[in-house]
């Protein structure tokens, strides 16, 4: 075995830019600090390469943790061609767009007392129930404004929602015409509101129509790259999309807190994905194991600095 370069010890100073910090991470190059630096290199290459179909996978309670504008800004800047998200992140995006807020809370409280006070807890973030009343009104009004003549695809429904919102992920996607896939939409408050609407209304939503547009994009792509937060439905949906094509993913960056030996897709390595043909043998891929509320902002900030140069 041959050794690589020497571990260069990190030097820090006040007023360092994120880019400079990442150069230090790269020099040290170990564990997840090193992986984070490599992720920045991979994303930079992926975003500069005009032939790449750029996917973004979004799982985990990221919007409640303040990550919403990172995604909407990336969409505005053209760094996302296809967004695949959980229904929950989109639900919380809608709630914020409607003027409701998530609040700083605490993870050391009586959840039973929170229920009495009608506050929902997402670790140390609080979300009062009122937000869901506002959300319900918006969703019921939206569904009743749509025609029941022909079925809508999930892409179309999400686009209709985005058109009616002033800001956020769905609003940006709608403006920039970026498709937002949410394969498991029924598993969310959006889904529950649709079920409620269907009790008395006739609107049809088809969950499978979207696969046509997705597969067409995949077949037309010369190269593909993915930036995934977490795992779950978004990760599998993205990685399986290229399977029918002769290609796989050429670039992949994954931010996760999970482990490979517990059976969750969020922990599965990108190397494992090579055995499936989902990631190509020569692909540039890295996983950074850490809390994404730390790594996502740092990484994207560093990438922006690189792209500006």
């Amino acid at each position: 075995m041959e050794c690589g370069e020497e571990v260069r010890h990190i030097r820090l100073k006040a007023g360092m830019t994120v880019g400079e910090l990442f150069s230090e991470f790269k020099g040290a190059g170990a564990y997840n600090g090193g992986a984070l630096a490599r992720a920045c290199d991979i994303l930079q290459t992926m975003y500069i390469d005009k032939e790449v179909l750029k996917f973004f996978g979004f799982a985990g309670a990221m919007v409640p943790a303040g990550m919403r504008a990172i995604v909407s800004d990336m969409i505005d800047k053209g760094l996302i061609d296809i967004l695949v998200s959980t229904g929950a992140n989109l639900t919380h995006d809608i709630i914020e767009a409607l003027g409701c807020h998530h609040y700083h809370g605490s993870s050391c409280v009586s959840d039973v007392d929170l229920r009495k006070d009608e506050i929902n807890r997402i670790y140390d973030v609080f979300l009062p129930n009122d937000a869901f009343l506002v959300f319900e009104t918006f969703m019921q009004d939206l569904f009743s404004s749509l025609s029941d003549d022909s079925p809508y695809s999930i892409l179309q429904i999400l686009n209709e929602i985005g058109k009616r919102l002033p800001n956020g992920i769905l609003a940006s996607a709608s403006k920039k015409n970026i498709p937002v896939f949410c394969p498991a939409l029924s598993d969310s408050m959006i889904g529950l509101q649709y079920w409620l609407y269907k009790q008395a209304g006739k609107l049809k939503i088809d969950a499978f129509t979207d696969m046509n547009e997705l597969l067409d994009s995949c077949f037309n792509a010369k190269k593909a790259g993915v930036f995934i937060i977490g795992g779950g439905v978004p990760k599998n949906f993205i990685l399986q999309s290229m399977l029918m094509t002769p290609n796989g993913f050429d670039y992949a960056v994954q931010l996760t807190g999970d482990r490979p030996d517990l059976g969750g897709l969020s922990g599965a390595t990108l190397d494992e994905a090579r055995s499936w043909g989902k990631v190509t043998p020569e692909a540039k891929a890295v996983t950074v194991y850490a809390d994404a509320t730390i790594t996502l902002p740092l990484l994207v900030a560093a990438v922006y600095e690189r792209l500006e140069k």
Partner: protein
Amino acid sequence: MKEQTEVGKLKEGRYVVIEDEPCKILGIATSKPGKHGAAKSRIDAVGIFDGVKRSIVQPVSAKTYVPIVERKSGQVLSISGTTAQLMDMKEYTNFEIPIPDDIADKVEVGKEIGYIESLGKRKISID
């Protein structure tokens, strides 16, 4: 004929219109407001005329309709197979009505029999 009301005002044993059918309410389960939004009621009901079980979930503030269910009586003018010709005792209107199997023996020409009417439908009902 139907009256508008709110889902939260419905009562077990009374009536509600579901899928344009007058139904008798068998049970109501109400949830507190939460992640799902405002308080909601699940109404379990059975069609008065078709016996079909129906259920619907709506916010308690949602508008819904209560069918007017009238108990009337009519005189049996004639019987043909499982259908009787009745004449309403108050309005003197004539109409056909199916004879339910279980009380066929109680339907005799010349006798009065009770029936219920709602949303333009009728059914013989002796209780």
